[in-house]
């Protein structure tokens, strides 16, 4: 069951198609340790993307955006680590986290081949798509599945932050055109 859910959520995040998530059944709900792992992994992915952008981006708004992503995602993940410690929960690796990491490393490699304005555009476009997908997964799967109230609340704050990032990325993308 979990494998099927994982495949569905990974596909949804990767393809930016939250509709797929709605097919997941209640019995396939991820556990809190798995949710914590997925959320943390999603943060690490955007931190790594931001670090790459800090080295490669040319446009000053894109550089500033990458800096904002680094600062916010590090802050969220710091809170997540403090929470799992407090709750005595060990984040549990799972197929969704693995699929996300694999897809992210492919994206890093793809963006690494680009330079200058082409890199800037591709990085920001991916940030829009990535935040959109993560927000969809948070809204339709991760938040409703979270059992612990504090974990749920942290995910809800995360959703607000990432919705802000998505809008910010959309503004930057519009400026680049």
């Amino acid at each position, binding site marked *: 069951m979990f494998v099927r859910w994982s495949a569905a959520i990974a596909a949804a995040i990767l393809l930016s198609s939250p509709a797929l998530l709605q097919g997941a059944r209640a019995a396939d709900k991820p556990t809190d340790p798995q949710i914590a792992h997925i959320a943390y992994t999603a943060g690490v992915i955007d931190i790594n993307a931001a670090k790459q952008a800090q080295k490669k981006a040319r446009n000053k708004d894109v550089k500033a955006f990458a800096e904002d992503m680094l*600062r916010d995602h590090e802050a969220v993940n710091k809170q997540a680590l403090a929470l799992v410690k407090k709750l005595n929960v060990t984040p549990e690796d799972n197929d969704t986290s693995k699929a996300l990491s694999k897809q992210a490393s492919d994206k890093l490699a793809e963006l690494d081949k680009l330079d200058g304005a082409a890199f800037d555009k591709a990085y920001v476009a991916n940030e829009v798509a990535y935040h959109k997908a993560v927000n969809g997964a948070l809204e339709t799967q991760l938040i409703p599945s979270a059992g612990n109230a504090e974990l749920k609340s942290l995910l809800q*704050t995360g959703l*607000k932050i990432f919705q802000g990032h998505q809008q910010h990325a959309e503004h930057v993308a519009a400026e680049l055109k």
Partner: protein
Amino acid sequence: MPGRLSAIASAVLLVAMAVPAHAATIEITMENLEMSPKDASAKVGDTIEWINKDVFAHTATAGNGDFDVNLPAKKSGTLVLKKAGTVDYYCRYHPNMKATLKIEP
């Protein structure tokens, strides 16, 4: 009784007219990516103090370009109001954070 009451009322009124209104400080909190109050009113000369209770940096940025106050995580920032008008402002880092400031002359 009514006589005394109206005497007090006139005295209060006189004092109110004689002493110029003191500039106030209006506090607006930013917590969990929400401004509170979302609609604040103030007068020219008043100070707005934004208190950022989040672990994330925010800004109070006027849509019309009148002000742009940086609010690092867990810090506050102030602004003395110079111009009347209704200003919509937002956070540059999280543009979904929006609020309005009504500034009376």
